[in-house]
């Protein structure tokens, strides 16, 4: 009987068992091209995990979410090490996009998880770290050509700094062209803050961030398809 690798991987993640998850990935890879690991194993597993997460399933803890992101990182690292036979890109290339914790926010966990899941989905993520001032977000967007900024905040006190990023985007005439995705605990508790503070969208879990970034990227292109970065 064929093994159900997706279920085994999901079980390992739900046990917060990173080593166990790696063993499942290794077993799956025997006799298969590793270049197919994302569509055939990782994505369906993370999709199932994301469903449990968004439903508030009892087995989904902070630790299991963390391990899911580590599993994604581990798979991605291996994928990048094992280049495709024709030398072509292993993952689709999307982006660039930016991610950072707003000024005064020192809670990187959620952001780290989003970075891992976005990279697994093929996004070129520039991670700006914690305590990022509004001007730095927008400077980096202009410098890299990122059409989406992801800003993370855990508490209302720090989430108010999202409004300052919004103001900086608008002040530089980049409204619409640079989309502002927001996330973090306070936005789950108070979804009205997304628009109140000037965000363009949010996701209910880190696993849904890629779909959000796709929508926002497309919206930016629809509003203004000219490149963000000045050509040399």
């Amino acid at each position, binding site marked *: 009987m064929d093994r159900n690798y997706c279920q085994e991987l999901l079980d390992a993640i739900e046990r917060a068992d990173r*080593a166990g998850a790696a063993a499942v990935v290794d077993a799956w890879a025997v006799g298969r091209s590793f270049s197919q690991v994302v569509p055939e194993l990782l994505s369906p597993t993370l999709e199932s995990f994301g469903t449990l997460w968004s439903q508030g399933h009892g087995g989904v803890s902070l630790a299991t979410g963390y391990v899911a992101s580590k599993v994604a990182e581990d798979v991605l690292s291996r994928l990048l090490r094992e280049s495709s036979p024709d030398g072509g890109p292993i993952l689709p290339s999307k982006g660039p996009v930016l991610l950072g914790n707003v000024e005064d926010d020192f809670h990187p966990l959620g952001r780290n998880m989003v970075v891992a899941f976005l990279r697994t989905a093929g996004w070129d993520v520039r991670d700006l770290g914690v305590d990022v001032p509004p001007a730095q977000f927008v400077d980096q967007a202009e410098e890299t050509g990122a059409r989406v900024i992801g800003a993370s905040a855990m*508490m209302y*006190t720090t989430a108010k700094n999202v409004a300052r990023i919004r103001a900086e985007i608008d002040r530089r005439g980049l409204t619409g062209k640079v989309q502002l995705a927001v996330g973090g605990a306070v936005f789950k508790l108070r979804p009205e803050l997304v628009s109140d503070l000037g965000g363009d969208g949010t996701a209910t879990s880190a696993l849904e961030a890629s779909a959000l970034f796709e929508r926002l990227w497309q919206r930016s292109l629809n509003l203004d398809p000219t490149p963000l970065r000045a050509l040399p």
Partner: protein
Amino acid sequence: MNQDPRRVRCIACSIFRKELEALQASGRLDLPVEYLNSMLHMVPAKLEVRLQEALEAARRQDPDRDVVIAYGDCCGHMEDFEAEPGTTRTQGINCCEIVLGRETYRKLRREGAFFLMPEWARSWRQVFVGQLGLLGPCAKTFMQELHTRLIYLDTGILPVPHEELAGASEFLGLPVEILPVSLDPLLANLRQAIQTAGHHD
């Protein structure tokens, strides 16, 4: 301005219990305090409900008495509580900032510190294993990825729990540092909140 601090009552996180009791015993703080379980911090929605209930009960009991909330920004609608007439909150995003003051807190957080207040240092296993679900090697990689060291904030009220700290250090894979902290910033913060409460008169 409210000249009589006894006309103010306080609803506080139990993370401050020993410290506030010591301030009361020394005569530096004179107001009644009700405590809510600090573990509510792990479930902000529950904390919000309990805090709302405590505020409503306090107002029913003595409508003329202002209320100071000794809390950080620990639930989604804390600002709504503060906006209610006769209610003020201590300034700071969490208990550690309230005890350390903003600049010291920011400096140490930038350095990657993870703080343990005296009460939580004694129940670290309940927080990390029971609440966060961190087990085995996962706990170490999780903490080492996010932090550089544990800092025990020694407020001088309880004996330093060396054994528990050693256990936390081993389990979480981070060195532990003991930082003596004065109760003055906490007291000043509370006094400011008490004074601000008076403006509601």
